[in-house]
């Protein structure tokens, strides 16, 4: 019973009706003050992996740079740049926070983050905007594959 009401709240948050339009305070905060943004172009070898997803035609492009600790495969740093609307910027920012908080997630843990988890942390997104956060997670997967390739773990590459 309790779980059901929680679910209901979740639906309200993401506004399935698609009538909602305005962004939550968390989204606004991450949009106006993006975390982990890559400001300077990286030096050669500064990051262990890089991934890019999206296209100019669609209007969303996300690029992500990762530092990964080899032994533990923990994500020590996640930087990004995004071409896209406010929610795309905020979702990528929040995603990078989730990857790196509390000492960083392991690759295995990080791959379990679902777009819905990001949306929840953002305090919800208007329904038509949900695809934006999905892109952040795809850019991350591309970067992880890059890491697997570079570390000769091609059997782990996510298709």
């Amino acid at each position: 019973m309790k779980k059901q009401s929680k679910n209901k709240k979740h639906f309200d948050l993401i506004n399935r009706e698609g009538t909602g339009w305005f962004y939550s305070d968390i989204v606004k905060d991450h949009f106006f003050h993006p975390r982990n943004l890559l400001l300077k172009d990286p030096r050669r070898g500064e990051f262990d992996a890089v991934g890019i997803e999206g296209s100019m035609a669609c209007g969303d492009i996300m690029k992500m740079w990762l530092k990964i600790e080899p032994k533990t495969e923990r994500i020590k740093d996640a930087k990004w740049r995004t071409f896209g609307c406010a929610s795309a910027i905020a979702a990528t920012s929040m995603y990078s926070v989730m990857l790196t908080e509390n000492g960083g997630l392991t690759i295995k843990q990080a791959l379990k983050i679902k777009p819905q988890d990001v949306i929840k942390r953002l305090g919800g997104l208007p329904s038509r905007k949900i695809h934006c956060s999905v892109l952040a997670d795809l850019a991350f997967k591309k970067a992880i594959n890059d890491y697997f390739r570079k570390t000769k773990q091609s059997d782990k590459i996510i298709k």
Partner: protein
Amino acid sequence: MRRIYLDNAAATYLEDHAEKSMTPFFKSFFGNASSIYEEGRIVRTAIENTRKKIAKIINALPEEIIFTSGGTEGNNLAIGGAVGNHFKKAGGHIIASKIEHPSVLNVVKELEKKGVQTTYLNVDRLGVVNLEELKNSLRKDTILVSIIFANHEIGTIQPIAEISKIIREFNEKNQTNVLFHIDACQAGNYLDLDVKKLGVDLMTINGSKLYGPKGTGFLFARKGVKISPLFFGGEQEKKIRPGTENVAGIIGLGAALELAQKIRQKESKRLIALRDYFIKEVLKRIPGTVLNGHSDMRLPNNINISIYGIEGEAAVLYLDSQGIACATGSACTSARLEPSHVITAIGLPYEFSHGSLRFTLGRKTTKKDLNYVLEKLEETVKILREISAVKLEKSKYEKAIKK
């Protein structure tokens, strides 16, 4: 924070003269215009005087004015009403440009479902309708051509008199009666609305774009043009638009249109100077920017630019946080997540189509406002380009412009 409102194509404030003209009709003169006693007669007289006033402004007859609830209703009534009259005949054909307002395009699409055939005219890179294509598209079973007088997004003004000449010549040659409708919702503040000079059969005007009340407007329908109603009821507006009249709204609309047309030349001159100053400065100060629409055949208050490498919605929200209100044709503000159909129709390469920004000036806009906006726009673009995964490379955006 001081707000600078540059979205006058979306809505204008109600100007004092119009507001004052409306006040008596809320409480003092609240009667129903259809009643024959004094309370009714007072209201009837006020409505008919407004009708005469509007008719004079647009060089039409009073009986050619049908009061509506605004631009959407006017466009629906003009197009749906003209076709409705033709339902007895099989088929029929409508021509509209690709850059019409949704309140035209979606009516046409709806009629398509009912079996009406359609042609959507292309526009060039500046947003001007292709007249040759129009000539070739006219058919003996064409019911109506609908063209937006001045575009709501990019401000391009269409050669209406030339278009009406093409239609008239076609009609004379083929003994047909193709009607010509224009959506003049964005035009009322700045352009000559003389329907004889324009040579149109139907014209839609709304009040909320010309400093009048929202929910008001009228359709001009030339005498002899048969229009079927969209809904049915009493005998108001010759049964074409039944329902108790929005008296205060009609009075306010009349007052607003009167003032708008009285000051339109002076105001156009003032705004053209501001508009061209802003455009020149943006293109000079911010690399990777292009002007959308025509540089001369353009609404005096319309500025529409595209900025390479940034997304329109993000820019609008940044500017909003700096006290500036403007609009975008970006995909991210539409439900379909595609750039606006107007921006797409002018063939803007996608490198630019996601970063379109519209600033529409108004009666209170000053050069000081625009200088502030220029400063904040420069800052916003700098921030968003820093965030953007698409880097500004001169060779790339110059190549894109040339496309």
